[in-house]
């Protein structure tokens, strides 16, 4: 179990790192929503190209992006096998009753390219800002306070609970437990998850009491002040225009 180190490289210096967090979220979300709905492989490839270009500007390490893209690719890879066999259309290869269709191949590639460009953009958006700053920026963008606080606290406690779980897991393993998908293994794992829930519940009570004693009222307090500058507009505007242009260029040209 690894810590979610999404903002590990947030302290690098690049134009994307210095981009105002609120403007960054809006700009990248517009681009992500634009690129996932592109309807042809050519357009999707242009999208992926733009995403890669922004990646180069953001100076994030290769391993950080490649590793996470690989996970997404492996998750979607079965589409490349299933869809050419099942989608009707023009056959490019035939063996007895099995036909491989061009349409199926195109459709599944389109899905994968769109997914990869969306994930690349999401990684740049999240990887260039500290995660707590991202959440604060979401609050400034009027996401309801209840959800923001739940996001913030859950994120904070994931690390604590991971440590807690790993302690329990180590204790189990040192007593010779090996997790197998049989009845015994699963019922032992069940007890362990039950214990984790109880421990977390008790922790939650203590956390709540200590927060109340420090004057917690149920409203989020933020001390980060963001300031939009001319350079933020200079980055946001062209990127949003590109995102819109990808869907409306036939009206303009």
């Amino acid at each position, binding site marked *: 179990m690894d810590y979610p180190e999404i903002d590990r490289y947030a302290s690098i210096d690049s134009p994307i790192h210095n981009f105002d967090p609120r403007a960054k979220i809006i700009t990248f979300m517009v681009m992500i929503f634009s690129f996932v709905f592109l309807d042809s492989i050519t357009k999707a490839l242009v999208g992926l190209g733009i995403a890669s270009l922004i990646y180069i500007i953001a100076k994030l390490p290769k391993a950080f992006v490649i590793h996470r893209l690989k996970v997404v690719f492996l998750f979607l890879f079965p589409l490349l096998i299933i869809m050419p066999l099942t989608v009707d259309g023009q056959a490019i290869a035939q063996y007895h009753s099995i036909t491989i269709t061009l349409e199926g191949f195109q459709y599944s590639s389109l899905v994968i390219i769109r997914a990869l460009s969306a994930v690349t953009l*999401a990684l740049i958006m999240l990887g260039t800002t500290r995660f707590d700053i991202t959440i604060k920026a979401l609050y400034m963008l009027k996401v309801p306070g209840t959800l923001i606080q739940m996001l913030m606290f*859950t994120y904070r406690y994931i690390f604590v609970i991971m440590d807690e779980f790993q302690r329990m897991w180590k204790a189990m393993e040192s007593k010779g437990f090996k997790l197998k998908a049989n009845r015994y293994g699963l019922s032992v794992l069940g007890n362990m998850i039950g214990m984790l829930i109880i421990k977390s519940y008790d922790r939650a009570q203590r956390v709540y009491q200590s927060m109340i004693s420090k004057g917690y009222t149920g409203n989020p307090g933020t001390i980060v002040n963001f300031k939009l500058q001319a350079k933020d507009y200079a980055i946001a505007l062209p990127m949003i225009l590109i995102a819109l242009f990808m869907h409306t260029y036939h009206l303009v040209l």
Partner: protein
Amino acid sequence: MHISDGVLSPAVITAGWAITVLLLLATLWWGKRDVDIAEEIPKISVMTGAFFVASLIHVSIGPTSVHLVLNGLLGVVLGTLAYPAIFIGLVLQALLFQHGGITSIGVNVINMGIPALIVYGVFKKGYSTGINPSILGTICGSMAVLISAIMLAIVLISTGEEFTEVAYAAAAANIPIMIIEGILTGSVVTFLLKVRPELLPINKEK
């Protein structure tokens, strides 16, 4: 189990977000009626964290490994607040681990969250009619995954008929998870009943 970015059509994505926002408002409003939300926020958050961590556990079956879903257990333990908890969990999974896409969070929360709400009702009803809680837990655990799998297939097919066979394959891949979740949820429910019964929705009515 999660749907990633780039798969679904604009109509399905929009509908997914609309339904999720409505259900979030409804469940949070419902939660606010009985208890102070200021008290609930830290509690649900820590519990969501626990479920998030538990869902990172991988169980290997044969050559592959599956990770736990636990939406049935979430429904049983958190009740209607399971919906916001699942929302937060999936947002963090999408943002931190790229499990499931950002645009498809709305749809994914429906697929996981609605079964959790149904299972909560089933557990409460079943317990009051006197069904053995560990059997009931097993049923709830597998039922939540089963409903999720069916909903996943429906969503995929409604985005385009090209996905029909993919949808069947994805749903079938969930059968082993269903069995694992069933046994696991049954065992967690039995454990909680012995050690800390107030965490289950059985004492809340009294």
